[in-house]
Each structure stands twice: as C-alpha cells, then as structure tokens.
C-alpha cells in the first residue's frame, strides 16, 4: 500500500469499527458472498454520488468482445473517510476490480477492492468485506 495513504486508511479503520454495523439495514444480499470476479478493464465513468458511487467498466475478453459492468461502491461519505477522492479515477483509466457479482447473473457487482493504474489499492469499506469468499484471480 502507498505509504502516503496508509495513515489515512489506518485512521478510517476506527471509524468503520464504530459505524460499520449500523449500515446493516442496507442489504447486500443481492451480491454473491461465495465467489468474486476479478475484472480488468477501462473505466467509462466514475459516478461520485450517494447513496453509492459507481464505477462503469468495459471489460474486453481474449476474443475482443466487450462486456460492460456496473460496479457498486459504498457511500461517498465512507469512501472519503477511507481516503478516496472523486478525481482519483478518470474515464479511460485501466483498473482492476475485485467484485462480489450480482447473484442474478446481470453484469454488475459490489466493489471489494480496486487497483488504480499506478498500483495503489483502495477499498470502499463494505461492511463485513472479509466475509466475502475470494476466488483466486484467473490469468
């Protein structure tokens, strides 16, 4: 993790300890807790809004076919407290996103971890993020 960011994220852990459970009224049950997708693609939009921010991502497969994913983040208030800023991601940026996919199979997911073009890793602070079973990345 970037050394400049580390104290910021460290400070946020405390905030999440006291506020995370209070978000339980918002259900994340539509997302699969048993597997993750690792999506590498180009950002088409970073939507900085409440109640959630969204990353719109075009993912191109080996045959050149493009699938568009909508990736739900948390509240921009939580994200700001975790060190995120609205200008960190721009259209065209190549990013890697680890997401819990929608159970119904639609091309969307809940963001658990994002790697920016410069290698910086950010988490949006999903309550109970460590309870989502991670699927190893397929190369």
């Amino acid at each position, binding site marked *: 993790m970037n050394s400049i960011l*580390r*104290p910021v994220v*460290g*400070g946020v*852990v*405390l*905030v999440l300890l*006291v*506020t995370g*459970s*209070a*978000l339980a*009224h*918002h*259900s994340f*049950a*539509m997302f*699969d807790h048993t597997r993750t997708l690792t999506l590498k693609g180009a950002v088409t*939009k970073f*939507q900085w*809004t*409440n*109640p*959630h921010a*969204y990353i*719109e991502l075009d993912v191109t497969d080996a045959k050149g076919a493009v699938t*568009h994913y*909508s990736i*739900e983040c948390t*509240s921009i*208030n*939580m994200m*700001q407290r975790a060190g995120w800023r609205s200008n960190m991601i721009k259209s065209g940026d190549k990013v890697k996103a680890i997401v819990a996919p*929608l*159970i*119904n199979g*639609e*091309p*969307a997911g809940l963001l658990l971890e994002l790697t920016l073009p410069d290698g910086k890793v950010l988490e949006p602070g999903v309550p109970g993020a460590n309870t989502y079973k991670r699927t190893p990345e397929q190369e």
Partner: protein
Amino acid sequence: MRAVGFAVVTAFALSLLPLHAAAQTRGASTIPDITGSWERYGARGGAGAQRDATMPPPAPQPPLKPEYLKEWQTKLQAAREADAKGTPLATNATLCLPEGMPAMMGATFPMEILQSRGQVTVIEEAFTQVRRIFLDQPQKAIEDVEPGFYGYSVGRWEGDTLVVDTVGIKESVRYQNVPHSDKVRIKERIHLVAGNILWDEITIEDPLTLEKPWAFTFAYRRNPDYKLLEYICEDNREYADEGGLQKIRIGPR
C-alpha cells in the same frame, strides 16, 4: 498501523478527562458542553474483553404485545429468508428515505450536536437528517403534531442531563422495523458518562403495541476534529419492484 495505536491511546486518554472540564455553569445548574461532532461508540454493546463501564449494554428485544411481536418476527424471518435467497426485501433505505426517530440517533455516520439559545439541534450526516429539540417549552398534545420522520421534541436540562420528550412519529418510520402506533412517545436522557463519551438513554412508550416501555442506549465518542460532510441521495439505483423486492438499475442514467 501506528496511526491506529495513537488514535486508540488518544481516545482513551480523552475519555478520562474529568466531566467538569467540558462543562459550563449556567445559573445554579451545570450544563455540559456537548456541541460538536460525535461518532457511535460501543455499538456491539461492549461485548467481550473490550467491555467497560462507558459502553452501554446491548439493546433488549422490543417488549411487543403478542400480536405485534408475531407480526414483527414474521417480517424479520421473511427478510432473513429473502436475504438467504439473494433476493432482499426493499426497505425505507432502498427508497433512499431518511431513518427518522429514533434510528437517526444510532448515528450510522458521524453526528453533530449544536447548543444554541433555547434549542439543541442534532444533525446526522447520513441523509443530512436534522432534529430540533426546543428547550423549556411545553410538549404538544400528540393529536396537535403532524406525524413526521423526527416528530416534535421538547427538552430541559435536569442538572447535567438533557431530558427530551418526542411525539408525532409517522407509523411508517420504524426503528429495526418494530411497529408502533400514532401514540408512540420517545423519552431520552442525554448525558456525558465520561469527558468525551455521551449516552442517549432512550425509552419508547406505546400503549397500543408495547407491553411495557422499550429501553436501550446509544453511546457516542467525541470526535472534535471531524467536520460533517454533505449527504444527498442523488442517484439511487436501488428500487423496490412490484413484489417489494430490492432491485438495482444497471448502468448510468
């Protein structure tokens, strides 16, 4: 992780400050200075090794009358089953509605208290919820208050405790989905239990739905450096479908 260690030590040290350090004297009584930012503290009821006297006990189940208890438990079970199937039920949160009273005092996000002449104002960052507590004024009759999300609150300082009475909560505004009638009354005793730890002892009375008053406590830790952020529910992609299930719109508008 050095920053976390420092924060913990600082928070602990601040919590040991004597009460009078944060108090102002007005006339014969001592009104504490509770103006500023607060964050929820001890939300897990102080379970386990970290338990100390400034952490409130866990909230008991609501003492609902049998018919309301059954309704509440049935809905709770339905919500659990829907979650297990990956098709959660829509809630007020799905619809981007503010929590209202008393849920907003649960401080999902940090909360700000402002003490001004004749009024204490509470602002909850999530959904920019605002409630006003009018000091030293008579409470209105319930039928004279239009039902709303925050109700009508009056309060008075009894020594170092702010005693608040609230009526006029809309029946659709529920804490933990517990049903209540238009006769519901929320009583609060807000006071410091340490220099930087505040308690809101809440008692809910409802002659129609509750066997006896339902009492629980929210605790907060002062966060003097925090400045509340704005919160506007600007683009809610989640919605309730015809069957009352929570759905999500894919893609931007």
